[in-house]
């Protein structure tokens, strides 16, 4: 439905330096799907979103919606933002403080090219306000709303003109943690129910994993990896993605050889590790192993730990987090983090065993960083 091809956007920053904020960004979003641009601040995700919105003018590439070009560097096409009919929720929500809730929401219908009668406007606005649960405060001053209500109002305003595409720029980042969790569910429910094609920008990996059909992880203006959430989490293609999405242990190692079943044997400071996910590498290559803390199974005895990928270490520190217990385990000189059920009682300084399923172990080419 949305097709972004080779998008390049530049801007001049405060020090008169040309910043290449988005470089050769290419992706497709099918009808009704939620696509997330994920990355640290300054990675170009917001610039990409603003280019789609028409608030930034890219220098190269093209953007098409349903086969219609809205931006094309070659054909010199640029549809201004107010002709694109996309709904957008801004990070600050951008609620107009001089209008009531209702007026904020009715604004798009009043100024758009399509003319509506007063009754139609009233009907549509109240319907969309009801959908976000704000119909009872329609006449209230927009500035008297709480953070969560402002966020809903911004969403209602974006939805009221029945946009072709919904653009969300870190819509949950200004909310407190509890509310954020709640709004995350609501957003997902609405998006799925209304089958709105949505582009979502966030730096919060949990949000991205929870909401998306597909995630593109960005770094320095480029898309590093593009995949469904599970794949991004389980099979990151680079150290950057593994590090940015979730917590992980990185262990440097050298490839020793291949097993008959295709598994890789890697020598590392914690010992020889069997890795199920083959990467194209030869014996002697430097690799970085990535193991998620929750995939480290912790045992009191070697017998309980089983046979494959078992390591012995000493408990270095223990942090109780309520739902989980974090063990920092020292193996030789390497410290690894294991996230386990709080039932484990091994004391600090005690000997501990842990195992890792080869399937849950990833070898990343070190040079790919």
């Amino acid at each position, binding site marked *: 439905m949305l097709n972004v091809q080779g998008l390049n956007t530049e801007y001049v920053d405060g020090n008169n330096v040309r910043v290449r904020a988005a470089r050769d960004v290419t992706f497709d979003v099918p009808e009704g799907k939620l696509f997330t641009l994920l990355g640290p601040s300054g990675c170009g995700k917001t610039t990409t979103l603003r280019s789609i919105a028409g608030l930034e003018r890219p220098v190269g590439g093209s953007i098409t919606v349903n086969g219609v070009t809205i931006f094309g560097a070659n054909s010199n096409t640029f549809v201004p*933002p107010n002709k694109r009919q996309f709904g957008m929720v801004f990070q600050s929500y951008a609620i*107009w403080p001089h209008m009531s809730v209702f007026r904020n929401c009715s604004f798009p219908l009043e100024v758009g090219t399509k003319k509506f009668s007063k009754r139609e406007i009233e009907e549509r606005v109240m319907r969309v306000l009801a959908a976000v649960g704000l119909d009872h405060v329609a006449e209230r001053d927009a500035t008297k709303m709480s953070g969560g209500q402002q966020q809903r109002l911004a969403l209602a305003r974006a939805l009221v003109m*029945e946009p072709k595409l919904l653009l969300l720029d870190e819509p949950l980042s200004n909310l407190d943690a509890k509310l954020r969790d709640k709004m995350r569910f609501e957003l997902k429910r609405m998006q799925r129910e209304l089958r709105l094609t949505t582009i979502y920008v966030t730096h919060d990996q949990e949000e991205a994993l929870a909401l998306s059909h597909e995630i593109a992880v960005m770094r320095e203006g480029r898309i590093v990896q593009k995949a469904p959430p599970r794949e991004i989490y389980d099979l990151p293609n680079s150290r950057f993605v593994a590090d940015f999405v979730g917590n992980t242990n990185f262990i440097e190692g050298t490839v020793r050889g291949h097993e008959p079943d295709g598994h890789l044997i890697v020598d590392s400071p914690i010992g020889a590790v069997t890795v199920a996910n083959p990467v194209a590498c030869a014996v002697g290559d430097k690799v970085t192993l990535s193991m998620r803390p929750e995939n480290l199974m912790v045992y009191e005895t070697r017998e309980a730990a089983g046979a494959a990928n078992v390591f012995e270490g000493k408990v270095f520190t223990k942090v109780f987090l309520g739902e989980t217990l974090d063990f920092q385990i020292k193996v030789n000189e390497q410290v690894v983090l294991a996230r386990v059920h709080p039932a484990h009682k091994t004391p600090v300084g005690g000997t501990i065993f842990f195992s890792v399923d080869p399937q849950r172990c990833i070898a990343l080419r070190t040079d790919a960083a």
Partner: protein
Amino acid sequence: MELTSDDAVDLPARRSRRLDSKWLIIGGAVLISSVLALIPLCFLLWQSFFTPQVADVPAAFTFGNYRIAYGSTQTLRTLGNSLRFATGAALVSFFIGTLLAWINERTNTPFRKFFFAITIVPLIIPGILFTISWIFLASPRIGALNVAFKSLFGLSRPLFNIYSMGGMVWVDGLHYSTMAFLLMSAAFRGMDPSLEESSLMSGAGIARTLWRITFRLALPAVVSTLLILFVRALESFEVPALIGLPVKLQVLTSSIYEAINQYPSQIGLASSYSVLLLVITSIGLYLQSRVASGGGKYTTTTGKGFRPREMDIGAWRFVTAGIYVVYFLLIVVLPLAVLIWSSLQKYYRSPSLAAAHHLTLDAYRYIIHLPVLRHAVVNSLVLSFSCATAVMLLSAVICWIVVKTKLPGRWLLDNLASLPLVFPGLVLGLSFMIVGLKVDIGIYGTLWILLLAYITRFLPYGMRYTNTSMIQIHKELEESAAMSCASWSAAFFRIVLPLLKPGLMAGWIYVLIVSVRELSSSILLYSPGSETVSIVIWELWQNGQYVELSALSVMLIFALIVLVSLAQYIGGKFGVKASRH
């Protein structure tokens, strides 16, 4: 609810077919501001190289104006007087203003809030009235203060002589001390007290903290305030004309006025004086903007309100409160009282019990029936209302371009719109007079030329007010309008202007006041039929009709107070409530 409509296919890459109103409005604003700022300046420079055109002798190119202007020791003396006067007045204003600001912001003096509120009142009193009332108070022969002190202490000679450099410095400095007060209050308020507190925590004592931290932090604000006051005093016209001219104490502004007022008018000579004045004010304001922008790193502009540290000064707080009372006495009560007194006389007499038996309202009767007055009031109202409205609309568009767009050359537009700041009112009046005389577009001698001059002169003030509010408008507020399919003009008129309203209203009221007070530009541009109230007062003074003038002054001051309160009431009623953004 079905929100995904099926007509999603009809998204044509529409180009705007008709000429966008955006570019019409922007282009118009750019054009107007450049014409207003540049044309008078060009004509002024041009004129300074030509001889006056008298009857049938055509104007000819000459360096004579500059030779006369800069070839005599008289000019050196005038320049020296100007600099001495401006420096003195700036220091007087600065000292009084800073003292009051410090008392107001940093001490626990009682009734601070009330004092702050009444500092607005002196801003309303026109300069010409303030000067005249101080002449009534401190002139050696008739001055009320002199008479009072003489009879109280049996002095043989008058205590004060207003007709001196000291007198000029005092009156001008005192009048503009409120300006210094407002500027320095802002500086004190912008100072983060935690900067001083961390110095104290580091082990520095109060004195060392004051010297190493407080003073250094305040330095940019101090220098910039002094420069503004200096330039302002240099441009001052009322005080040098009313106090300096009778005793031949010439400064640049009064020389310009004299050059024009002789027969035949030496417009070329006046222009060459003006060029010198322009050079000095330009340098002053350039330095000021450098200092102020360099000082940006010292002030915190997060808009987060600090709680300024208040010093408990113990019993001294009654002294500081006393200072406030004396100040208010000097700047409002005494001037107003002497005007009211003299307005109730048949002919001017110093206050005394004997004279109190002859109070009469004749002067008021005379003024109300003065035929020119009705014109003048209408003219003043029309001028100030249209000027304030035009200035605020124009500056809204210009500020939007400067702050919100990335158009190349927008800094130039900003500078163009602020350029009139270097024009002293008299020089601006002269420039417009030259334009009006040389280019026959039928505006000379009408209200239009006055209006154009006013708009030019006050556009920079409008820009200041609008700029502050414009910066505070988060850019996403406008972008979300664009995403809601609003065209540029819909977004501008329905989002930007309403959000600017508090700033626009405040600026509008300010421009309204200064337009009513305006004298130094009008004095060169008015003709019979286009007098303003300030001009009528000026003419009454020239005719020696002191009691009639006092009556008009009293009425004018009260009318202005009513006007301002009304405007503020309306502004408060229809202003936007404080927003979170």
